[in-house]
């Protein structure tokens, strides 16, 4: 910070101030409305309380239609830190919760709670926090938040966020400048409630610990200055400073510049230069919330302009429709050529579109100009006179902004710092060509925001699209590859029918080897029984494990071939089918896998070694059978699909029949090959044992136990006689049958 704190304080004490660039001097017109006390507005029959009246997020509505509410009862709540609750401004009944024209330049409808007042104005039991100095800061801040207080000067920034700052606050500036012509609500508030404002400042000081408190008031409000001076006399740390009258001296950034010569950095906040600013109205509301426990349910509204007969200030409950204020101030529509009402001041206020627009927390003025005051002249060409640049408090070049905004050169407008425009209206005020400059800026700003939003959206969509395109290409490639393989397989199958026979022989050889191994294994000790697992780690260390590895490789090869074939099979089958079929077959595959897993599970769960062993053997045989069956079936199917390449449906139909006949065949086969199967079972058992060992390896806690049981198991298996094996073979037969049945069922499922 280039401007030293002590220097600034010294200057302030001597009432030496800085200046901001530009500024204008519109006719003040304050005496119209600041002559009388703030009057209490009679309750209107209906109140329209918008759910969101501040910058941030709205809370959840916690009342329902038809519910009776008391004055001060919260209507919304939220845990979001940027939410500020709203409260019932008076007692009555909730008529509806729905859309209502908003107090916003657009006038777009927004969620509003409509209350029918019972004219009794009964308060909820209030809980003041007079001993706030003894309370924790968080509780005080919470109380301020729960009272629904947001900045009452203009933007409506949630107060509790501002006072919750953890940064060092050098200056707490209380803004009582009120630089807009016509408006006198803060003026009257300071004159009549200076003490309460001071109490509010006390609370803020307690929370923020500022080094210096400055209460800034424009010179054209001598009564307010005096009142505040009296109220702040006791506290030497509070300085009331009168500010030269110049619009927009009350703008946050401009006031900081005038008092401290510091500039809030672009896109920064006042706290970045050690300043926190609150409006006097906010201080009053804070004091109300802490010392009386009252939430923010009313505010001072100036009703003024040439078209009202008795201009003045009113305590208006939030949600009061402006038409009610029109009546109270005796609005004379004949003084206007066309009805016109402005919410806010003549420089920054907006035209309201409907007389049921409600008063909200930021509404400080309703201006009803007479025909003389509301002059609209036709927009003419910009003559580049530069008058606008001379008065711009942000030191922008409004004519360049206008040029680019009008030409829709939004990039260039941003180069000229469009977003630093505070929309004060000074430029348009002086423009001799009557160009509604601010309007052009607003449009350009919203267009840029829209563009940015759209860009974000478009980026996301593009990303999605690109991903999808990549996926589609990958899928297409995979499909092409599969088709190619399938075609090759078909070609091969046609040209060389002995190929599959070869495969079978290879598989048989592998099995034979495995059998041999199994026998060898039968002799081997318990340690070796888990050798395959070890062999993976220390391959080649033992001859016997080498053998096993070879056997395993051979098996794996056979399996892989079978799997490939199955895949080709599925592909060639599904090539002409609907895409959903693919997923069906996929799920069928996964079903097979699941079954395998089931078997493993059962194995795992069985505690008794003997039963375990039997089951394993049985399952292994069953699996082998099922596999073989599947393989055979697949081979047949491959032939089928070659036979009917264009008629996949009939192929599938035929498949089913084939599978049924397979069933019978499988039975025969099982009977015939009982012995072989038994041998195979042994080999499988070994493998399964290894597998289960692996499964166990995953489970650290049970590993030891199971290893022991496996040891036992293996020792027992050494003594296992032929009889048992035969029983196992019988069981295997049954299992194989069942497996085959399952398989056929699956095929049926697939088909359906």
């Amino acid at each position: 910070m280039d401007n030293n704190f002590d220097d600034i304080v010294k200057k302030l004490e001597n009432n030496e101030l800085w200046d901001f660039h530009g500024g204008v001097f519109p006719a003040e017109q304050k005496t119209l409305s600041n002559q009388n006390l703030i009057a209490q507005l009679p309750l209107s029959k209906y109140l329209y309380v918008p759910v969101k009246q501040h910058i941030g997020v709205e809370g959840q509505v916690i009342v329902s239609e038809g519910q009776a509410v008391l004055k001060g009862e919260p209507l919304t709540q939220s845990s979001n830190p940027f939410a500020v609750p709203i409260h019932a401004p008076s007692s009555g009944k909730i008529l509806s919760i729905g859309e209502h024209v908003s107090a916003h330049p657009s006038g777009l409808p927004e969620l509003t709670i409509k209350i029918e007042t019972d004219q009794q104005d009964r308060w909820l039991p209030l809980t003041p926090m007079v001993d706030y100095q003894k309370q924790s800061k968080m509780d005080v801040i919470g109380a301020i938040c729960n009272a629904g207080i947001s900045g009452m000067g203009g933007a409506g920034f949630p107060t509790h966020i501002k006072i919750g700052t953890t940064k060092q606050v050098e200056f707490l500036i209380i803004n009582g400048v009120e630089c807009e012509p016509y408006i006198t609500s803060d003026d009257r508030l300071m004159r009549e409630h200076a003490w309460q404002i001071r109490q509010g400042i006390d609370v803020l000081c307690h929370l923020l610990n500022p080094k210096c408190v400055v209460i800034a008031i424009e010179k054209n409000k001598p009564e307010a200055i005096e009142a505040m001076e009296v109220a702040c006399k006791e506290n030497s740390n509070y300085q009331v400073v009168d500010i030269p009258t110049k619009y927009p001296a009350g703008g946050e950034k401009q006031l900081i510049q005038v008092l401290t010569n510091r500039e809030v950095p672009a896109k920064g906040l006042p706290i970045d230069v050690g300043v926190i600013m609150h409006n006097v109205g906010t201080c009053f509301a804070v004091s109300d919330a802490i010392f009386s426990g009252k939430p923010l349910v009313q505010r001072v509204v100036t009703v003024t302009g040439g078209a009202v007969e008795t201009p003045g200030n009113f305590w208006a409950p939030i949600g009061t429709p402006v038409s009610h204020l029109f009546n109270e101030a005796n609005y004379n529509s004949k003084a206007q050529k066309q009805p016109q009402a402005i919410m806010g001041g003549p420089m920054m206020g907006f035209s309201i579109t409907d007389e049921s627009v409600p008063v909200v927390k930021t509404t400080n003025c309703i201006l009803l100009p007479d025909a003389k005051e509301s002059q609209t002249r036709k927009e003419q060409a910009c003559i580049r006179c530069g008058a606008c640049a001379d008065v711009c408090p942000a030191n922008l070049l409004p004519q360049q902004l206008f040029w680019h905004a009008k030409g829709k050169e939004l990039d260039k407008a941003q180069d000229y710092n469009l977003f630093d425009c505070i929309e004060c209206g000074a430029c348009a005020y002086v423009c001799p060509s009557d160009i509604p400059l601010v309007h052009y800026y607003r449009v350009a700003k919203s267009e840029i925001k829209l563009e940015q939003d759209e860009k974000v959206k478009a980026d996301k969509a593009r990303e999605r699209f690109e991903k999808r395109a990549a996926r589609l290409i990958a899928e297409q490639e995979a499909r092409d590859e599969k088709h190619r393989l399938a075609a090759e397989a078909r070609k091969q199958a046609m040209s060389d029918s002995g190929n599959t026979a070869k495969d079978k022989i290879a598989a048989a050889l592998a099995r034979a080897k495995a059998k041999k191994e199994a026998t060898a294994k039968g002799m081997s000790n318990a340690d070796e029984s888990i050798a395959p697992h070890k062999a993976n780690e220390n391959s080649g260390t033992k001859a016997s494990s080498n053998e096993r590895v070879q056997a395993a490789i051979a098996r794996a090869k056979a399996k892989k071939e079978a799997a490939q074939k199955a895949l080709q099979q599925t592909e060639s089958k599904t090539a002409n089918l609907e895409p959903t079929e693919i997923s069906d077959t996929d799920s069928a595959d996964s079903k097979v896998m699941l079954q395998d897993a089931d078997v493993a599970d059962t194995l795992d769960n069985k505690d008794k070694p003997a039963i375990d062993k039997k089951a394993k053997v049985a399952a292994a045989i069953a699996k082998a059978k099922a596999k073989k069956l599947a393989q055979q079936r697949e081979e047949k199917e491959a032939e089928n699909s070659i036979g009917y390449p264009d008629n996949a449906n009939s192929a599938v139909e035929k498949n089913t029949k084939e599978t049924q006949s397979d069933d019978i065949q499988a039975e025969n086969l099982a009977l015939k090959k009982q012995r072989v199967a038994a041998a195979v079972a042994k080999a499988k058992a070994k493998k399964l044992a290894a597998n289960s060992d692996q499964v166990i390896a995953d489970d650290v806690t049970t590993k030891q136990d199971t290893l022991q049981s496996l040891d036992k198991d293996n020792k027992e298996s050494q003594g296992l006689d032929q009889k048992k094996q035969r029983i196992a073979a019988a069981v295997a037969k049954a299992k194989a049958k069942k497996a085959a049945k399952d398989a056929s069922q699956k095929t049926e499922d697939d088909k359906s």
Partner: protein
Amino acid sequence: MNFKLASSPHQHVRRNTGQVMRMVILALLPGVLLQTWFFGWGTLVQVMLAIITVVVTEAAILELRKKDFESAIKDYSAILTAVLLAISIPPFAPWWIVVLGSFFAIAIVKQLYGGLGFNVFNPAMAGYVMLLISFPVQMTQWLPPAGLAQYSHNFNDALYVIFTGFSVDGFSIAQLKTDYDGVTMATPLDTAKTAIAQNLTYSESIELPIFDSLVPGIGVASSWISLGYLLGGLYLIKQKVINWHIPVGMLTTTVVCAIIMSIADSDVYPSGIFHLLNGSIIIGAFFIATDPVSACTTNKGRLVFGAAIGFWVYVIRTWGGYPDAVAFAVLIMNMAVPLIDYYTRPRTYGHSPIKTNKRGINDE
């Protein structure tokens, strides 16, 4: 209720473009009246001719462009152009000179570029330069100021000369141009330039009768007329119709150049005050270079713009082929306006001082 919708601000200063232009025209009055006093009714006739021409031209063109010509006329910008052009050309120049120049200024320089606010060049000066280049003879026929002329002339003479080339008494413009010594009249700047070219010293040249006025070295008529325009210019600054930057930048530069050069060789180079009050530099500084449309819009830029014009004025006056140089200097600098504007942008509130990168874009 059907509410009227308007964008903020809802108040305006009660001064619009038309009023601004009218104030400028009003500020020209003292100078124009003095010019009429010294050079005869011809000046006023030319002004009337120019105004009629621009109004007709502008109306016709806007009608063709399907635009509302009433409000365009009411902004008085065309009329101001007409007045500025008319007082720049010799009062007794033939009528078609001013008509052609006015038409050119409005139709080509202003409307062809898109109308008010879009023209790059100052229309009055562009019109003037076009005339000067195309009709050098007619454009340099200045009559001797009152008191020096051999033949006096009245309003009728002015009309006759402008429309027929001869006065009521049958004198031609060439005859009217001679002074009571029978010497053909030239403007002070011309005179000095010619004298110096004839190897007279500057101090000798200002002994000539045309410089016999209140301030030695200043043309009689020029000095008074310049003071008249100066008065109007100061009024405009006071009324905040124009900023001081352009006039101050322009006049200071010319004078400083003149002083430096006359210190170097006072025999050949006229003094600063000579340059300041002779020729059209005062009217140029307050009324022509300040034409908002074709000038810079930032205050820093205006200073640069004014200073550059002042520099060119001095250079062209001293070494150029034409005696006076305001019109050329202004047109040269009109072309540089976008550039100057771009590089003299003020620092926006809350931004660090402007750093300009290759594209000249402000990075934060």
